[in-house]
């Protein structure tokens, strides 16, 4: 009898937990990132153990270590450091250590892929070190939010949520950093394709309604980089009260490029030299590292501009 009650109770518990963390919708987030009905408490044990159960108290670096346990190719097909799948396809997000973006592609409407990996020149941090979150917070409040600790989990929800690439709807909740809205739920694609043959792409696009044609990812990236989301006319109309991000390239409109058309989400192998390598950080801080100027861009120097504004 006791066993039956316990059995029923643990059933209830599973349902409750699944409801709490799964967000309800039955969806296939792939791998162990399962939101919805297929969740069992046992599947939690893959990541939550005696030790990692204290994940919240663990150093940030070990959260990323958890992800790399599989995403190095030994537990998932996507190898995020190498920017490639185990099958050899180039990852859409680029890579953290190597990437395969053909950053010299002369095709006017394309940025192709390379046959082999090149060392990245810039990437989002994943080690939880303190970083300047460029453009976060309100206009006129300096270049960004200082001391943001970025890991994989800042952007992705390890428990799955049915969104595109399990992206968190509101990533910038850490330590007082601000986000613009209640959150951006980027709808998932079906079938899922992690690789690309053309990096010159806006990513998932809003299908219908007043915002049809606009890129989801521009709004999503701007959950952290709030002041980079620029509506039509931003190139000629200054952002009120803003000394730093005054005139901005449109990034929000259907005709304008999305953030990921110019930038790789994880990291890029673009080379920068000459003036491009010396463009200061917002606020005027000089670039110190030799490769520091590449800013996750998908083409060498400012080659990305020439795709749409040929000389």
């Amino acid at each position: 009898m006791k066993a039956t009650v316990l059995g029923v109770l643990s059933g209830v518990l599973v349902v409750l937990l699944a409801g709490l963390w799964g967000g309800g919708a039955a969806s296939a987030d792939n791998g162990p990132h399962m939101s919805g009905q297929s969740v069992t408490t046992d599947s939690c044990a893959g990541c939550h153990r005696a030790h990692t159960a204290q994940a919240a108290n663990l150093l940030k670096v070990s959260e990323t270590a958890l992800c790399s346990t599989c995403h190095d190719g030994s537990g998932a097909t996507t190898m995020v450091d190498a920017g490639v799948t185990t099958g050899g396809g180039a990852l859409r997000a680029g890579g953290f250590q190597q990437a395969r973006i053909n950053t010299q592609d002369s095709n006017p409407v394309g940025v192709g892929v390379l046959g082999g990996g090149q060392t990245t020149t810039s990437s989002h941090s994943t080690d939880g070190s303190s970083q300047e979150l460029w453009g976060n917070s309100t206009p006129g409040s300096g270049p960004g939010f200082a001391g943001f600790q970025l890991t994989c989990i800042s952007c992705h929800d390890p428990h799955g949520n049915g969104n595109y690439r399990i992206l968190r709807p509101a990533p910038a909740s850490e330590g007082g950093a601000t986000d613009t809205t209640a959150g951006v739920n980027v709808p998932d694609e079906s079938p899922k394709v992690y690789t690309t043959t053309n990096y010159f792409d806006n990513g998932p696009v809003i299908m219908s309604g007043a915002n049809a044609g606009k890129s989801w990812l521009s709004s999503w990236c701007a959950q952290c980089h709030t002041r980079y989301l620029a509506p039509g006319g931003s190139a000629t109309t200054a952002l009120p009260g803003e000394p730093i991000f005054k005139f901005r390239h449109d990034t929000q409109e259907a005709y304008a490029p999305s953030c990921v058309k110019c930038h790789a989400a994880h990291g890029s192998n673009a080379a920068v030299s000459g003036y491009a390598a010396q463009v200061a950080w917002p606020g005027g801080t000089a670039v110190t590292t030799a490769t520091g100027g590449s800013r996750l861009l998908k083409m060498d120097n400012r080659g990305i501009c020439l795709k749409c504004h040929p000389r």
Partner: protein
Amino acid sequence: MTSNAQDYPRHQPPHLGRWLKGAVALLLLFALAWVAFVALQYQQTGKPISEVAGIKNIGPLAKLVQEPPRFTGSVWEVARPLGVAAAPDGSIYVTESAGDRMVKSFDANGQAKASIVTGESALSRSPLYVAVSPSGKVYVSDLERHAVLIFAPDGQAAGQVAPPSSEGWTPGALAFDAAGNLYATDLTPGQHRVVVIDPDGTLLLQIGQEGSAPGQFEFPNGVAVDAQGNIYVSDSGNGRVQAFDKSGHPLFMIGRGTSKGDLGMPRGIAVDNGRKLLYVVDATAHAVNVYDISNAAPKYSFRLGDDMGGESLSYPNGVAVDGNGRILVADKENKRIAIWTN
């Protein structure tokens, strides 16, 4: 589970109705309180209820079958090691997953020897696991090369293992039996499996396919074979170990869970034939579980790592047992090989 239920009468006498309703309501209240309590504990501590301090663990204490081995030192200067293997002469081979991505080699005392490289540059190689054949040749699986590459002990390239399928493969974990047959896991998307290949390159046996049913695998990251030819597979994505006899018939499973001896993310696996022990690395438990396999059913025995002599591991991945009763653990995030000695 439900055998006791039969002791109760099927139909309650009518006068018990009110009492029963009350009891059921009370029970439900209890259930709700308990669920809320467990959920709250989990929310706050992130620990399953059985591991929350102050709540007594009612499971039987694990009995030690023998003195567990002692931690005796580390070999450093390996970049996020994934795999480790011991040669008959006591040499140690280690696959690196970061930095120069080499296969580092050390003598039995931990002195560095010539490294092995599986591709021209760090950008064109990605060594995964390593095993040493009975004749001392070093076999390395490489994700970038999609091959098992063969080397002489001094690092001289000596060809590669013929793929078991004409379309190629994505070899992962490796092990040898005494006859020199190679046991390998195949991580080719959509067709995860275990293959046994004889020294001439003939496919002798193939077990399983990708999936979660018994006999199927998700990203198997460890394979070991004992003196009887029984095969032990770390079915990492499904969080379990599956054992098979030499013809591939299932023997037992060690499953995923949070109780003592349960697994989370099993990776490297190794057998100590003399002591009849099975070593299974549990990467997310940061420990190596050790099971007594002298009987048909495996018995959890002890564990290396967090609760052993204070020596902690961080995302350990590979394990090997050498001829001198030493246990070598590829301690990935601590960037070392941790060594225990019997």
